């Protein structure tokens, strides 16, 4: 059984976008990078229904990088498995003056599994138009930038709510952002 069934389209509800931006803008205002994981059931048409926000010890938010310790990532994995959820995408921010594009380090120091999205938001998360974000999909042995046409066909953003969770060394729990 293929562990990575092909993905044709990703559905990213507006609630996922809103929750993610609400999370990353605070660190962005402090001049550091941050990010979130997008989870859902992997299928030809997969829906991001859960946003997981790593937080606390084991999460580094620095001007030049956002890093999540393996132990925190492991807690997400341990929680997601029984729910039938997989990692569909990783979003992180870049500061002002840095393009919303994957850096060489972003490409290599991230999850490298077929079909996983990598999304980069510029200006510390203040770019609220997903059309100007960098959207990539992992294929072969690298991330590939989705151009506007492909993005339009393969990524939809309907209205809809998602679960928002906080992940830490202590586990995963619901988190209210507002």
């Amino acid at each position: 059984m293929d562990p990575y069934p092909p993905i044709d389209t990703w559905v990213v509800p507006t609630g996922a976008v809103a929750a993610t931006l609400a999370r990353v803008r605070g660190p962005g205002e402090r001049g550091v990078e941050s990010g979130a994981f997008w989870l859902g059931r992997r299928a030809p048409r997969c829906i991001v229904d859960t946003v997981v926000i790593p937080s606390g010890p084991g999460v580094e938010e620095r001007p030049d990088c956002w890093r999540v310790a393996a132990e925190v990532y492991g807690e997400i994995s341990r929680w997601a498995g029984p729910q039938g959820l997989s990692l569909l995408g990783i979003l992180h921010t870049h500061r002002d003056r840095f393009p919303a594009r994957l850096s060489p380090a972003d490409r290599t120091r991230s999850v490298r599994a077929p079909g996983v999205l990598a999304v980069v938001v510029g200006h510390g998360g203040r770019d609220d138009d997903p059309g100007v974000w960098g959207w990539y999909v992992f294929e072969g042995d690298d991330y590939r930038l989705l151009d506007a046409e492909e993005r339009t066909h393969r990524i939809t953003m309907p209205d809809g709510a998602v679960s928002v969770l906080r992940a830490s060394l202590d586990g995963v729990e619901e988190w209210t952002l507002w």
Partner: protein
Amino acid sequence: MSQIQQTQESHAKPGAVEVDVRYLPAAHPFHQTYPPETTLETVRTAAMSYFGVQDRTERDTYRYYLGFEGQRVTDTSQTLGGLLGEHRQGVHFELIEEITPGQAG
């Protein structure tokens, strides 16, 4: 089927351990049944192969470890039977990637 094969199978099944290994980006876990004397390194290696990943050192070092009940498995020479005891017949692991950045420049 030879008598030897019959004997091996009849000995293997009663203590067999059902192993699941999950990897967060994947849709399906790695699933295999092992005799209890199987080392955790054997499980880790088979799971990595199934998920198409491998330990490697480029500029950075990439290492995959097994997580068990929220703890990192550090001794992969240990056997399934040694980890689980006599009576447990199934186990879930997580396969977790750890990236150690190399020196810049």
